[in-house]
């Protein structure tokens, strides 16, 4: 909108207008800023080139295709010391991605739980959450990483102790927690595992579809939708059924009978007990009956039949076993990964908790009062009314937390976790003397990864933000 008045007479363009005339001033300033930045960049560039030349170094990337010569302990893709530096960098890259991805998931879960808890009316719960948030937020991350690493290596037994009996494995001899890491069974995919995978994908798809359909039905009829836990149970049941069918028909039948007996004991026990005692106690009695059956009676009972159906499943498990120096077999989750993951997720989780708290507080009180007035219980109010509205406040700062976590994962170097900073930006740089190239490439990797994360999260943000209809 312009005010209608006589336009000033144009009597040519004077140089001073560049500064005094508001029409040109902003352009002038921008041009000057551009020149300064461009000059600065050029100066940096020419300095780099001169100084590199003075050191007798040039800028080349061919070292990436030379033999790396060093070994890496945690490999998500196959790698030997005969492979190239670029492959070593890829191994490191996947290790970074692994810890960043898991870290973001755990941090989000922790953040939501503690963010909600901190607002709880329960004094203990809210104090606990406050202690967690303040404790982790106010101590440098590096200290947490080193401290947690020290705890997981100092407070656990060395593999040798498992031989002498000073330490023992957990969960039926399947898990060993040592000062070198935790060893867990790893799956072996035998013939026919593909079918199992297909069934799993189909079952998950079906469960999602069912849930969506039941939500639509709710809109039409008011019947409440299928609970999420039921969907999960259905998926697991489908997978287990196919798994045992694959293992053998007789085995499958027997398994079904076994499960049916347990369910029957639970249901009948609960029903009968309910007539005498309160519900909670009845549930406990039912649980006790199941344990009694499963651990004390089932063995001898089935033993009476002396019948062992053939069992040949497509997916079996490789259990860790104590070898000469260490456990072999199974999957080793190294302490460096555990410590880094714990520290990153606990630390970032504390920040996310505050973001979640802020998000919830940003939803006006009237919303929850209205929800209560409608008769919604507290947890449904939270999940159906408050959180969906808090999301638009939560997500944008959440993106920066994810980015922080990803970049902070480069502190891995402190405890010898072989991420990209330790492989490409560490050993490769050191063994080849290509500092500039190696560090630039490492930096570029983090840049691209961060841009991808924020692109993804922005897309998610757009899909959850309030749609004005």
């Amino acid at each position, binding site marked *: 909108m312009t005010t209608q008045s006589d336009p000033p007479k144009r009597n040519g363009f004077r140089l001073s207008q560049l500064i005094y005339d508001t029409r040109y001033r902003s352009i002038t300033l921008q041009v000057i800023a551009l020149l300064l930045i461009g000059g600065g960049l050029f100066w940096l560039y020419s*300095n780099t080139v001169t*100084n590199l030349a003075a*050191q007798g170094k040039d800028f080349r990337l061919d070292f990436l295709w030379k033999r790396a010569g060093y*070994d890496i302990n945690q490999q998500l893709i196959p790698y030997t*010391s005969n492979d190239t530096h670029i492959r070593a960098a890829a191994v490191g890259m996947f290790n970074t991605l692994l810890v960043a991805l898991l870290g973001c998931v755990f941090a989000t879960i922790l953040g939501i739980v503690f963010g909600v808890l901190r607002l709880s009316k329960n004094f203990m719960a809210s104090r606990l959450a406050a202690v967690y948030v303040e404790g982790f937020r106010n101590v440098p991350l590096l200290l947490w990483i080193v401290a947690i690493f020290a705890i997981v290596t100092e407070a656990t037994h*060395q593999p040798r102790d498992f031989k002498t009996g000073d330490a023992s494995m957990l969960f039926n001899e399947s898990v060993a927690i040592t000062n070198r890491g935790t060893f867990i069974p790893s799956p072996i995919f035998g013939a026919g595992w593909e079918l199992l995978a297909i069934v799993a994908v189909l079952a998950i798809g079906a469960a999602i579809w069912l849930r969506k359909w039941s939500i639509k039905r709710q809109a039409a009829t008011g019947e409440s939708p299928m609970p999420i836990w039921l969907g999960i149970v259905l998926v697991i049941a489908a997978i287990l059924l196919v798994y045992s069918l694959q293992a053998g028909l007789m085995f499958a039948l027997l398994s079904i009978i076994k499960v049916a007996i347990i369910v029957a004991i639970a249901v009948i026990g609960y029903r009968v007990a309910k007539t005498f005692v309160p519900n909670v106690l009845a549930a406990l009695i039912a649980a006790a009956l199941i344990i009694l059956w499963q651990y004390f009676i089932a063995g001898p009972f089935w033993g009476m039949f002396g019948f062992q159906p053939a069992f040949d499943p497509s997916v079996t498990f490789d259990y860790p076993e104590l070898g*000469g120096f260490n456990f072999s077999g199974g999957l080793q989750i190294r302490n460096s990964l555990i410590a880094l993951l714990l520290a990153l997720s606990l630390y970032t989780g504390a920040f996310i908790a505050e973001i979640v708290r802020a998000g919830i507080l940003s939803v006006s009180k009237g919303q929850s009062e209205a929800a209560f007035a409608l008769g919604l219980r507290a947890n449904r109010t939270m999940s159906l009314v408050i959180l969906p509205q808090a999301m638009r406040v939560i997500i944008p700062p959440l993106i920066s937390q994810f980015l922080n976590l990803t970049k902070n994962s480069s502190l891995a170097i402190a405890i010898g976790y072989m991420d990209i900073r330790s492989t490409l930006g*560490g050993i490769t740089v*050191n063994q080849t003397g290509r*500092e500039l190239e190696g560090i630039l490439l490492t930096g570029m990797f983090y840049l691209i990864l961060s841009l991808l994360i924020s692109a993804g999260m922005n897309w998610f943000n757009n899909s959850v933000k309030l749609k004005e209809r």
Partner: protein
Amino acid sequence: MKKSVLLGAVAVAGLTAAAASAATLDDVKARGSLNCGVSSGLTGFSEPDANGVWQGFDVAVCRAIGAAVLEDPTAVEFVPLTTQVRFTALSSGEIDILSRNTTWTFSRDTDLNLNFIGVNYYDGQGFMVPKELGVTSAKDLDGATVCIQTGTTTELNLADFFRSNNINYEPVPIETNAEAQQQYLAGACDVYTTDASGLAATRATFEDPSAHVILPEIISKEPLGPVVRHGDDNWMDIARWTLNALIAAEELGVTSANVEELAAAPTNNPEINRLLGTEGDLGAMIGLDKQWAVRAIAAGGNYGEIFERNIGESTPIGLARGLNAQWTEGGLMYAPPFR
């Protein structure tokens, strides 16, 4: 050269070299102190004592150079460096010389643009294991977890050794010797591998050194020596010939006790006279005065004295001279003639 000050802030490694490349001797004199890169703590080689004064075999080389150049063996700034950052620190000009059990290899000497000025310790890579494991040979280490310092020749040798012997291992990468020691003692790794001298030095600090054995296999050649960067031949000469002076002094029987006396007047051994500046003027050829070698030897004694005092058989580390004896005693220590 002003340019480079700001560049440091950009923190791209190795950009600040210009300031330091040309005349190191002048820079050191102007500064009044020598910047010497040492390890972050390895008993007998470089470690601050109870008073915070750096002591050790690698430290002694720098003190000798400091004495030769600045006439003061205490005018040395020691910069503790990890294996990973040592070469960057040297080529960026942060230090004037690196004296930090560093192996002389082809690619370091050429591709990294460094100059090794000689060898002050002929070493090889060894393995240390707790005695209770009952291991007697490195070939029995299949499946072992091995602690290694990253950015070393050690990790490359290790990979080659295990691959060529077709045995598996799990490497645990570690930044410093202190950390490696802690991990090893906690049993987080079965084996610690590094230069045999480093193993002996590390073991000497254990509560019960006899509970650990160093395996007989030496899997590599590790000639350890001080390093300077390319581009300043005069500085390289000074460093090289100071080290040679220490070695020659032992051969010629010049010690910290008798050096003043021998330097007071010409003796009847012309080589001693040239070394101590009572005949000819070798010092001038490297831009120093006549007395440079006298001061270098007086600072901590000749090579043999330095060895005995810091890592020799009378110390807890207890290393025998072995390959590091004078050539006249069947060793490899052989200083070129001073003439």
